[in-house]
């Protein structure tokens, strides 16, 4: 899967889980940029992402992501 495709799918997931109107994620986006993205919704996002892409992350990986770019890197690694 191409990175751009992954980003598109992530946008959909974020809109759905966080109840947003729309979002444009980039490599540099962090939780500080989106108000509804807190530690609680973070885990809900992870669950949705794992389901959507059919992957499973380790706890350590989840803790280490500093921005969306690193999240996408992890997805790419697993696919």
């Amino acid at each position: 899967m191409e990175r751009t495709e992954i980003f598109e799918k992530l946008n959909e997931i974020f809109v759905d889980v966080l109840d947003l109107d729309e979002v444009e994620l980039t490599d540099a986006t962090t939780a500080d940029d989106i108000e509804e993205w807190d530690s609680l919704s973070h885990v809900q996002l992870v669950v949705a992402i794992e389901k959507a892409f059919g992957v499973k992350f380790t706890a350590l990986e989840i803790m280490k992501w500093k921005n969306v770019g690193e999240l996408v890197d992890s997805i790419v690694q697993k696919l």
Partner: protein
Amino acid sequence: MVVNSINFWLFFAAVVVPYFLCFRGQRGQNLWLLLASYVFYGWADWKILPLLVGVTAVFYGLGLAIARNNESNPRRASQLTTLGVLLGLGILFYFKYFGFFVQEFTALFASLGVPCGERTLNIVMPIGISFFTFKLMGYVIEVHRQTAAPTRDAVQFALFIAFFPTILSGPIDRAATFLPQLQRRRRYNESDVSEGLKRVLWGLFLKTCIADVIAPWTTVVFGNYAHHNATTILVAAPLYLIQLYTDFCGFSEMAIGVARIMGLRVVENFQRPFFAKNVAEYWRRWHMSLTTWITDYVFMPLNVAFRDWGLWGLYAATLLNLIAIGVWHGANWTYFWFGVYHGLLLCIVTGLDKRRKRFEKAHHLKDNELYAWSRRLLTFLCFTFGSVLFQAASMGDFLGTIARLGQGFGPLYSEEFSSLVIYALPATCLMFLREWVAEYRRDIHFMHSPNIIVRLVSIALLISFIIYAGQLEGNSFIYFQF
């Protein structure tokens, strides 16, 4: 040496003058502060000082080893981190909880008819242990997660752990925000010193004019609850919560202020918790350094581990999270049930979250002040009930206290109550006013007014009020026992 004593300030003066004048670089400054911190801790508890130095050395080594293994041997890194956490928990368990467990098991066996030798382990809990072990464990976890860089500088690391303004009672700092500050020399900065002094003054005000004035009354009421009627208990409960807040917040303010004078920023511990609109928000504003620690290192991992169980996984993680916070306070069933109580409340809040947001949207309640204040009142009442549990010496005492509510109302217990009304009440109003301004306007208030005369007069009046109306007989601090 408590922060609100003349001895402490003499010590501090002796430390801070050379701190600014004698050293050309951060190495000298850090070493000097480290020595001062060890002297300070030794003064409080010299028998445990070797333990402090020892674990600091061990964790210093662990940090470096974990960082080395993070990329090359992740399994090893995980194992070392786990070792660090177990070591920290082990120390904590031994000093804080072991005696309690032995006691409970002995009682359990006795009730089952199995005789056990009556042994009361006299393990004296070292002061500050809950705080520095948490810093140590946090450090190795952060290094493992690569959210903090490990340090090769042993002095900086040891200072981070033993930093005297915060070692006895927090706030609990993080390596990622504290260590970088130690890498530069701190120069005398007038705004830091001025701001630091103002915070110390405010902390002193909270503690001596509110907490220590309320304390004698609530201690007598709750210590002797069987003699008091429902009216007295109902008045004492919220007063106790205010006392707990001003006691701990006051102390935190003084610690943060002292650090600020030295040019070091310590994490905040409180953010006007009485303005929280629900229990979840309250915990994000109360003892923040502990709550964030437990959230980052207990709640998140649990939440992630339970993520496939949906809402029930979240509830389980929440409950365990709050139980951890409760039990951190000490080895007593009251702390455990305190955690359970708040865990359940939080689950309710989480469960109703979406429904509440829809309700608010439908009725346009977002900016409704009356609605906001009724939520705050409800939250305050929830915490008031929790604080009665928190202060009880045992579950029996808690239940006994609650039982008094059914014994009928009557006149308020008025012994020594007048000093609360004459001193603590205006002081509490002042505190509330200041917090209200900070919450809603975020700008000028007296000590930070742009007008220098207002500033100086405010400070002078505050100092005078503290000396005139404060309980100055050096009362100790509730959170010292944790």
